[in-house]
């Protein structure tokens, strides 16, 4: 065994020597850069198209300099020229430049004349860094789950302890009662028997007036509950179906602050708010292939990554090859908000013309891990809002006259949507 180690050592020394030799025979400009500076430069300039360990628009760049030197015999000077003006290198007829240009489908790399040689040294130093072996992540999630679940457990423990205490007390009382009775019978004490008067409930039943009152009360209260039950039929407030892909509005609209209208773009211009087609998802998820935010025991990183995989499968995106396979399959989203067919509703009228915030009707969507229906979407709810909402009468030259006349008619300064005709039947039912 020892011999083997020594042999390896000697080999390593030889290699090290070679590296030193190469390092010193290189041009002076090829000094080692600063990986930290390189990282920020890389993230600002290169990361749009390159990742360190994953093919993207351009090739993966981990150890790019060493790989190029080994496989293609290209030095740092070539890299300088390529990064500063790739198109020029391709035009000059450089064999490898043309090969890589063709390999990536003629996607020309942007020229970076603003990067100095020193900047490029820093970037190359960053790409030459050893890949960080992903530090075993369990500590963090475990710590997280521990604290999270311990909160839940402590509540349950308290409740459980209270329940046990209650049971013990009940059992204790029962036992005390039993032993006392036993004592009484042993000492020959007669326990007072319950009297033979008519019991209270029988007297109650025999009193016809009381019975009548009770019957009326019972009928009224049951009518109340029946009415309540009937009027919630057809109201889907709180409806929260399970979607084919777990899309968290909390992560997208809340944590990352993506505007509602980014995905639901047709809400600005059309009747429906629009379910985004998958190319809208892929605008970002071409680059975002894993989840790196907060996790919980229920929604782990693996869970979210799996959902992104589902998106890739549906959109027909091959993440390894970074191109579309052409085999897409539509996602069967479950519709949550659905007005009955006899009611007309137009998103653009509310979103663009009235400038109503999406949250006014859809609730705190940016906090919803799973989307649900916030508003009852009943007619009373619509009308209530139309009665309370003032319309914007300023700087709307087309309607100036009608606004003035209506204000005069109702004797108010601010017109509500209802006064503008927002309560007329034909506006929504026709």
């Amino acid at each position: 065994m020892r011999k083997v180690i020594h042999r390896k050592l000697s080999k390593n020394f030889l290699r090290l020597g070679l590296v030193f030799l190469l390092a010193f025979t290189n041009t002076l400009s090829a000094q080692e850069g600063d990986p930290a500076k390189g990282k920020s430069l890389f993230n600002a300039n290169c990361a749009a198209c390159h990742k360190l360990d994953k093919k993207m628009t351009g090739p993966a760049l981990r150890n790019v300099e060493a790989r190029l030197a080994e496989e293609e015999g290209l030095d740092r000077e070539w890299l300088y020229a390529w990064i500063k003006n790739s198109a020029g290198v391709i035009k000059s007829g450089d064999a490898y430049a043309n090969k890589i240009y063709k390999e990536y489908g003629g996607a020309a790399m942007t020229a970076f004349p603003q990067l100095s040689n020193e900047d490029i040294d820093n970037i190359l130093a960053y790409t030459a860094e050893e890949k960080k072996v992903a530090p075993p992540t369990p500590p963090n999630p475990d710590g997280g789950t521990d604290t999270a679940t311990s909160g839940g457990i402590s509540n349950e423990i308290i409740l459980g302890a209270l329940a046990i205490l209650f049971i013990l007390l009940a059992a204790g009382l029962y036992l005390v009662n039993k032993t006392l009775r036993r004592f009484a019978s042993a000492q020959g004490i007669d326990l007072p028997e319950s009297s033979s008067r008519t019991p209270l409930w029988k007297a109650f039943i025999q009193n016809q007036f009381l019975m009548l009152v009770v019957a009326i009360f019972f009928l009224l209260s049951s009518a109340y509950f029946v009415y309540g039950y009937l009027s919630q039929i057809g109201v889907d407030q709180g409806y929260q179906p399970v979607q084919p892909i777990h899309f968290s509005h909390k992560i997208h609209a809340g944590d990352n602050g993506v505007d509602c209208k980014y995905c639901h773009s047709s809400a600005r211009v059309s009747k429906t708010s629009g379910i985004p087609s998958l190319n809208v998802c892929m605008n970002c998820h071409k680059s975002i292939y894993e989840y790196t935010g907060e996790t919980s025991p229920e929604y782990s990183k693996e869970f979210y990554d799996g959902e992104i995989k589902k998106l890739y499968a549906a959109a027909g995106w091959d993440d390894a090859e970074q191109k579309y396979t052409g085999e897409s399959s539509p996602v069967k989203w479950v519709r949550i908000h659905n007005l009955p067919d006899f009611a007309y509703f137009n998103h653009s009228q509310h979103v663009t013309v009235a400038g109503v915030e999406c949250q006014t009707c859809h609730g705190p969507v940016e906090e919803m891990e799973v989307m649900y229906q916030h508003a009852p979407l009943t007619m009373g709810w619509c009308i209530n809002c139309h009665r309370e909402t003032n319309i914007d009468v300023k700087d709307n030259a087309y309607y100036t006259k009608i606004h003035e006349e209506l204000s005069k008619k109702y004797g108010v300064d601010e017109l509500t949507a209802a006064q503008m005709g927002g309560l007329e039947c034909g506006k929504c039912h026709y």
Partner: protein
Amino acid sequence: MKSLIKILVIAVVLVAVSCKKDTAPNYQFMPNMYESAGYETYGEAAFPNGVEAQVPAEGSIPRGFVPFDIENSTAGYELAKATLKSPLDSTQVDLERGKEIYNIYCGICHGNKGKGQGNLVKREKILGIPSYDDAGRAINEGSIYHTIYYGKNAMGSYANQLNEEERWQVVSYVLKLKADLEK
């Protein structure tokens, strides 16, 4: 016996209350008044691919739509950069609207100032968004429009979220941001 009845009643009430599931839609009085005979938006339909949302017939052009002839390639990008000009004259450019649309669709990555520091970049979800005053790219109105229309590198196409006029409004606003950055 009495207590047994009480327990039963309580159990029935509890079951009845807990039966309302949020994952299924509620009952409806007259479903045929709620659910249309016509196809619902994005619903299922008796088309070959089974969905209501159909692609328009090939070659059809919406009223007022101008086809975009420059192709989606590096050569097309260069061509757009060299020749494509905005159809909006100075009276039609509405920077307020351009800003509104820009902040919705572009600001999330490019930043509301165009420096490439949008929220997704700050949170390190997407990296390497260039600033508009990047010298190597030297964007102009033609290249901006081409990029919005087809996307570029990791950026996707925004042709389906913005119509032609809106795209040109955004182009005008991006040019304004670029000018501000270069000051």
